[in-house]
């Protein structure tokens, strides 16, 4: 398990005191059909961007609450990770972006028939957001609306 003890004392104290936003009531969308017939989208918070995409803005107080669309046919090794957090080891995701954005694994699941298809776009957030109000009010609903319009059935969300 990831553990608070991984972090420096100031980060640990911050996280212990942080007012995590409780989701109430818990929203719930049961699976409506077999996964082998479902369309999957990936959501990563590793702040991946493709060449030519606007970088995440580290200067935004409380964290950049925007997101980037990553096309399904993207070359995973073209992704640049720009997570602003210095509280974790970035080495692994630099070696293999699939560690936090498992596009190759998702393609393999479709080839095996475990998943019906992949959505033409996936989403990349910069997860280090300490003031999530604008994420809650603006960008998370906008992201959900995009994937709803794409007829996405299931989403796998991966933090770092």
């Amino acid at each position: 398990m990831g553990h608070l003890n991984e972090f420096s004392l100031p980060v640990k104290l911050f996280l212990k005191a942080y007012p995590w936003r409780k989701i109430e009531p818990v929203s719930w969308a049961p699976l409506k059909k077999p996964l082998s017939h479902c369309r999957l989208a990936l959501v990563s918070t590793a702040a991946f961007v493709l060449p030519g995409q606007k970088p995440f803005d580290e200067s935004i107080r409380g964290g950049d609450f925007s997101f980037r669309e990553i096309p399904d046919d993207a070359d995973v090794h073209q992704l640049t990770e720009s997570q602003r957090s210095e509280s974790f080891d970035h080495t692994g995701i630099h070696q293999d972006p699939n560690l936090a954005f498992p596009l190759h694994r998702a393609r393999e699941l479709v080839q095996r028939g475990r998943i019906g298809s992949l959505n033409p776009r996936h989403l990349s957030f910069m997860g280090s957001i300490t003031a999530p109000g604008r994420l809650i009010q603006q960008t998370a609903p906008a992201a959900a609306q995009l994937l709803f319009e794409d007829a996405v059935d299931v989403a796998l969300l991966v933090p770092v």
Partner: protein
Amino acid sequence: MCNQTVCLVAAELERHGISTVVIQLLREVAERMHPPRAIFVPFKHGYPLDTPNDPQRQHAVIGAALRLLEDPALTPPVFAEFRAARD
């Protein structure tokens, strides 16, 4: 903070009828936030799907996460623990 961000996005996706499962590196966060479905993984931050360049280990985590979506008996919030098989 990434653990919170995926929970908040998952909640909004579910409100739009999209079934979700979130990987979680910090049990404390999910237990306080109540995302719809979460699987706790025994890896340090930066390594949510276990080992870089190891498709088999990454598939093990993803497979366990996806199975949470398939159990009609589960009710929210769903918390499950992933136990990595080690050589």
